[in-house]
């Protein structure tokens, strides 16, 4: 294996050229900042013969951040999102999540589309080619076993670690997806299909750590969009071993609304735990009353029920699952009190 295999670089100037290039090269991959993809190429995990650079496509670069609606192009950089005053003002959870990603140089290069479609990660997967070979590969590449759960019956548990996804999930964001058959809009939550259920087969709508995005052949994310909700307070926080250049051990986004003394709306989403970013189900039942110990206990119960952190990182799953609950509770309390 070469340090960097041969590939052709295609640099479209318009969205039309990009779609055409994608259609012309079946095995191509889109490249934004390359902060995820280039590492995987260097490790021999993927070897696309053609890379399509999205950075020259003006239609993908904009950030429209108004008081009513937010729309971010897939090629906008994480630094641009983190530093945008109107994103920080009206959609703080998004700006905070962007500012928490890796280190400054990664954020200067990394794009919104790349972070939303970030490859899932696992200690048995994000290794060099000789390492994976010595370990007999794994389900996510060419092997036939999941080293995280050897009895997983063909299910991969690699973990989703993007920071933007949980932030945008709490805002009920939708994405524009462009492909050979045109443009379609879908809820962001439908993009992530890494359910990794051992009791059901992997399908187009129910996947695992390997098949974790509901994108059809040739499709890519063009933009992400959300509407503002009046009175919604939101924030993002995550646990890291090191405070920069680090994937989330556990990341939590919270958005809530307060109506007088009552919790009127509560949305919580996680990253770094499951093969998909998890928007916590069942939070509506916690709303309508005061934010008391019962509500917090209910929140913790939902987290324990839905967060399934496996041994995909050096940090044990038990810890990631438990601190997910702690971070969520703290953010809820802080936002409610603000």
């Amino acid at each position, binding site marked *: 294996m070469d340090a960097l295999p041969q590939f052709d670089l295609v640099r479209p100037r318009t969205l039309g050229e990009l779609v055409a290039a994608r259609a012309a090269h079946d095995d191509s991959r889109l490249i934004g900042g390359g902060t995820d993809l280039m590492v995987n190429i260097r490790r021999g995990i993927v070897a696309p013969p053609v890379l399509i650079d999205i950075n020259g496509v003006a239609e993908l670069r904009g950030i429209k951040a108004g008081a009513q609606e937010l729309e971010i192009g897939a090629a906008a950089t994480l630094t641009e999102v983190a530093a945008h005053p109107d994103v920080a003002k009206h959609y703080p959870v998004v700006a905070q999540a962007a500012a928490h990603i890796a*280190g400054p140089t990664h954020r200067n290069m990394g794009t919104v589309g790349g972070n939303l479609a970030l490859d899932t990660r696992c*200690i*048995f997967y994000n*290794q*060099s080619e000789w*390492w994976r070979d*010595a*370990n007999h590969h794994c389900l996510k590449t060419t092997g036939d076993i999941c*080293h995280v759960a050897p009895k997983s019956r063909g299910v991969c548990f690699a973990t989703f670690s993007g920071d933007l996804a949980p932030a945008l999930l709490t805002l009920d964001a939708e994405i524009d997806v462009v492909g050979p058959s045109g443009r379609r809009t879908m809820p962001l939550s439908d993009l992530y299909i890494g359910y990794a259920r051992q009791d059901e087969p992997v399908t187009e709508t129910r996947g695992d750590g390997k098949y974790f995005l509901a994108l059809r052949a040739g499709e890519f994310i063009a933009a992400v969009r959300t509407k503002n909700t009046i009175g919604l307070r939101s924030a993002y926080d995550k*646990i890291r*071993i*090191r*405070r*920069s*250049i*680090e*994937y989330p*051990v556990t990341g939590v986004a919270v958005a809530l609304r307060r109506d007088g003394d009552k919790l009127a709306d509560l949305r919580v989403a996680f990253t770094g735990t499951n093969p998909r970013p998890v928007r916590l189900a069942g939070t509506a039942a916690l709303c309508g009353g005061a934010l008391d110990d019962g509500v917090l206990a209910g929140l913790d119960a939902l987290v324990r029920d839905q967060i399934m952190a496996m041994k995909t990182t*050096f*940090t*044990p799953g038990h*810890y990631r699952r*438990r*601190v997910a609950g*702690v*971070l969520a509770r*703290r953010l809820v309390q802080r936002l409610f009190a603000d």
Partner: protein
Amino acid sequence: MVTILYAGSMLYAIYDLNNVKYLGKRVLTNTPPCGAFRGHGTVDIRFAFESLLDEMARALGLDPFAVRRANLLNAPTFTQNDLMVNSYGLPECLDWVERESGWHARLGKLPKGKGGVSKGLGMACSHYISGASKPVNWTGEPHATVKIKLDFDGSIVVLSGAADIGQGSTTILAQSVAEVLGLDLARVRVVTGDSEVVPKDNGSYSSRVTFMVGNAAIDAAQNLKAVLIAAAARKLEAKPGEIECLGELYRAGAQDKGLTFNEVVTEALKDTGTITVTGNYSTIPESHGGKKYRGSAIGGTMGYSYSAQVVEVSVDEETGVVTVDKVWVAHDCGKALNRLTVEGQVQGSVWMGMGQAMSEEAAYHEGLMLTANMLDYRVPTIQDSPPIEVGIVESIDPHGPFGAKEAGEGSLAAFLPALTNAIADAVGLRFNDLPVTPDRVFAALEKRARIKGNGAKQNGGP
């Protein structure tokens, strides 16, 4: 192998110990081969030793500073295993960190459990050699050789094989030569590392360069100075002993107009052309250990540096995240030849200790290293760095270059136990496994809560 010997031998060189039992074991593993690392032979054992001292002090209700002070060496001395200790600034290091950290006023009064976070203070000491006194090559060569070339234009080029690995040794060599000759630093250039040109050097390791190569540079500069004084004496028709060297001016008595440096250089080169002088440095036999104690050649040095440290931490008892709020570190480097370099080296030592103590880990899966990259092997970033206050203690070593000793390694080892001692102060839990990552802290807190819960049940509690 050397590390095992060092770890045992050097136990004697920090406190006054008369009886030491030390057992070292070599274990054959299939993990990657290891090599010397900053603080080589002191770090792990100092972590164990200073942790035990702290535990003992807590159990007996003693002030950890008082425990150290009751066990100080009485320098100058030879330790029980015949290690030579001439300068010993540990008492002053203890005083400095105790005072600057406000130890006695603040210990036990830091907030506990506020917002789930408890704060604590911890302290520890460490030491290190300024190069091994026994030569690594047994050929009879000096420990260090430096050459200085002086040319017609008055340019001074110092030639040394000592590689500057970021510790600033090239600057120290230039400073040493400029100091002896009384010249501005701008007159001196240093060439290092090119083995076609420079004399062989034993290497930049075990903190030997400032001490040994620095002494050799001083020797070379003194030899050059003697040549220049002889030339000035010739020109001024005086005896060499009458020549006063003021760097840019050489004169025979205060009334003499004298010669400029360049005039002296012209005179000196008149018959010989370009001048090259050599300077050497060898350690003294007293530092090599005697026959009294078997193995006393190990761990011997011409001068030990000493360090004391206080670490203040916050422990988040709900997430297990440990934050170092501040570090006070005092380092006895004999004499700071360059205060900025010393501060930088001491801060770097603390920082590197922080990596080992808090985030860096070599983890394996069936013999395959899991963390063999800069993402997963978590070297701390500037975001992780606490404020580090450095106190420089100058004990003026009788053999050191201008009294200097090492500054680049000795402050690493104390960080690890000072951190875990601070965590013990904050939450009452002692961590013997490093790094103290949030999940380890969390697991220990959870285990304690479980044991307490069981105890309460047995006692008829809920």
